[in-house]
């Protein structure tokens, strides 16, 4: 999983500051199409200069929520504030918001320059001012020499940048991006992700990004809002979402995870012990869980947090034995699929630290899986 470049920078966490005022406030917003509830009572605060990602599978309501921010859809109930102003009833052409469309929606009958200038002309700015800002923006997205081209003479990546330039040139308070990188190939996508972040930091515009691609969300965002069936399931930084999922759905949606169903047998404030039928020993987790003893819970363990060994661990818990069923060599790491005695398949990834190892774990070998007591996450739903 790629790490956010923000992690290396100065801490930017306005959501932890109780005095910080949210820049965009989505208040109990519901949107129905006939009987179908596309967005269900969503309340969300987004702060200035954030890159907020709405992540979810197709049909989860993320695009509808974005379109309500743009003004293309009116909420059935609830209100939307941008910079303190109620935007609920304001039409799109009067909102201080611009959108970058998934299809880019570049005007085919205009040159790159005319496309970018379109919004500024609409504002009635002076010709010289328009020319200056268009040139500046085209330089920023590195399209200076393509100004006179027509859209059909551009590559996919260039068109994406025209769309970005066109939506940024009006200096919106909020930029909405609908699957901004979906149409690009993998190499270009990675490169463009970092470019987007750089541009966002240069201009200081608040971004709301809709994506179904979790890797894209992890790389781009300051925070992620994970959506399912029209509801926000969890909001948090990429690492919070990955390391502290609040439910089975979140844990399984982001990355891959091994989920062990079990009963809470010991429930202390400082630790819990879970008896899982699939595992040889109980799962011991070094933090408390707010659930009744005997309740069914799930222990989620990420594949990279499980260790493989031939020696039987000496500890009374947090290990199990298994047989290697499949090994996939990926270069940077290897994926092992192991079968527990119960028949359940467990996924383990191991980094390939050394170029050559004589004594690798191999097919059909019986091995021991173990993990640290900080690794499992206990979820109750």
């Amino acid at each position, binding site marked *: 999983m790629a790490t956010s470049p923000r992690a290396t920078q100065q801490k930017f966490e306005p959501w932890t500051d109780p005095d910080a005022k949210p820049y965009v406030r989505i208040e109990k917003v519901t949107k129905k199409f006939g009987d179908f509830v596309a967005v269900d009572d969503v309340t969300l605060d987004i702060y200035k200069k954030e890159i907020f990602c709405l992540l979810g599978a197709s049909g989860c309501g993320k695009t509808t929520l974005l379109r309500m921010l743009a003004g293309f859809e009116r909420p059935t109930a609830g209100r939307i504030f941008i910079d303190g102003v109620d935007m609920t009833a304001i039409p799109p052409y009067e909102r201080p918001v*611009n959108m970058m469309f998934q299809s880019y929606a570049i*005007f085919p009958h205009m040159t790159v320059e005319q496309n970018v200038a379109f919004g500024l002309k609409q504002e009635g700015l002076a010709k010289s001012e328009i020319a200056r800002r268009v040139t500046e923006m085209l330089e920023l997205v590195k399209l200076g020499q393509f100004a006179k081209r027509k859209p059909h003479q551009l590559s996919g990546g260039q068109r994406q940048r025209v769309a970005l330039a066109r939506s940024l040139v009006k200096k919106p308070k909020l930029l909405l991006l609908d699957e901004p990188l979906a149409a690009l190939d993998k190499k270009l996508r990675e490169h463009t992700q970092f470019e987007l972040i750089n541009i966002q930091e240069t201009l200081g515009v608040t971004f709301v990004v809709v994506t179904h691609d979790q890797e894209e969300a992890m790389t781009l965002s300051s925070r992620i809002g994970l959506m399912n069936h029209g509801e926000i399931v969890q909001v948090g930084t990429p690492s919070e979402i990955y390391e502290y999922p609040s439910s089975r759905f979140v844990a399984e949606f982001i990355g891959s995870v091994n989920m062990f169903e079990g009963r809470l047998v010991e429930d202390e404030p400082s630790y819990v012990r879970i008896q899982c039928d699939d595992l040889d020993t109980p799962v011991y987790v070094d933090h408390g869980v707010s659930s009744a003893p005997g309740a069914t819970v799930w222990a989620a363990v990420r594949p990279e947090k499980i260790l493989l060994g031939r020696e039987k661990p000496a500890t009374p818990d947090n290990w199990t034995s298994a047989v290697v069923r499949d090994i996939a060599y990926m270069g940077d790491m290897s994926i092992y699929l192991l079968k527990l005695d119960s028949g359940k398949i467990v996924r383990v990834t191991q980094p390939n630290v050394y170029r050559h190892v004589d004594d690798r774990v191999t097919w059909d070998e019986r091995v021991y899986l173990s993990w640290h007591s900080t690794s499992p996450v206990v979820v109750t739903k």
Partner: protein
Amino acid sequence: MKRLGLTGTNLVTAVPYLWLLLFFLVPFVIVLKISFSDAQISMPPYQPLIHWVSEKALQIQLNFGNFAFLVEDNLYWRAYLNSIFVAGVSTVLCLLIGYPIAYSIARSSPSTRNILMLMVVLPFWTSFLLRVYAWIGILKNNGLLNNLLMWLGIIHEPIHMLQTDFAVYVGIVYSYLPFMILPLYANLEKMDLTLLEAASDLGCRPWQAFMKITVPLSVPGIIAGCLLVFIPAVGEFVIPSLLGDPGMLMIGKVLWTEFFNNRDWPVASAVAIALLMFLVIPIMYYQRAQDAEAGGGLHR
């Protein structure tokens, strides 16, 4: 087979070429030939262009008099200009009426869209001639329209509408409107509606988005529709003869008179050739517009 170039593709493309050769080029050459000959009372009523002067000499005699006659007699000029004027006005009227119709059909739901399109082409199921005759019944002094207006009390005596220019415009606009609507609809229907959302997002009110995005993008459809109405309307003969003033000068009527009443085939042919030359210019323009669209000039 292969060596002779008789591949499947060649045979398929040969069909339209043969068709055009037989039914367009050959008749055109015949008409062109007649236009250069001289009228005489015989069967056929013109002199042959090529004849033997002796056993060893062929003589080709080209008579440019017919074309000179067209230029000298201002009747022809006035007929040409009037036809172009009438066709031009009719085209503009068709565009003004057809654009909103095509637009609203293209923006309606897919199921009603098909019903509406069916209604646009439904008149074609009746003979064109019958439909023009029907307008006589509507427009004549004690016809449907006058009776309705009098019944409503808007007028007290019939308005003379039949055999006026107004009736000709009604007839042409009515008959050719589907030819305007069809290409406009085809163009507007395939337009990407997110472009309008993008325009709205960038500060356009709905009518501004229409003027700046929808209209420019529908130019190929506008050109196609206008040419499909203008070209046949210039040579229109039936509508002005049935609905128009008998004195109305239209080149189609002049051609008819020359051919059937005066039995002057050479002059009639010269009129036809000159009309074709007038029309070749807009047809070529249409072709270029089509090529530009196909070649990526206007699409994204």
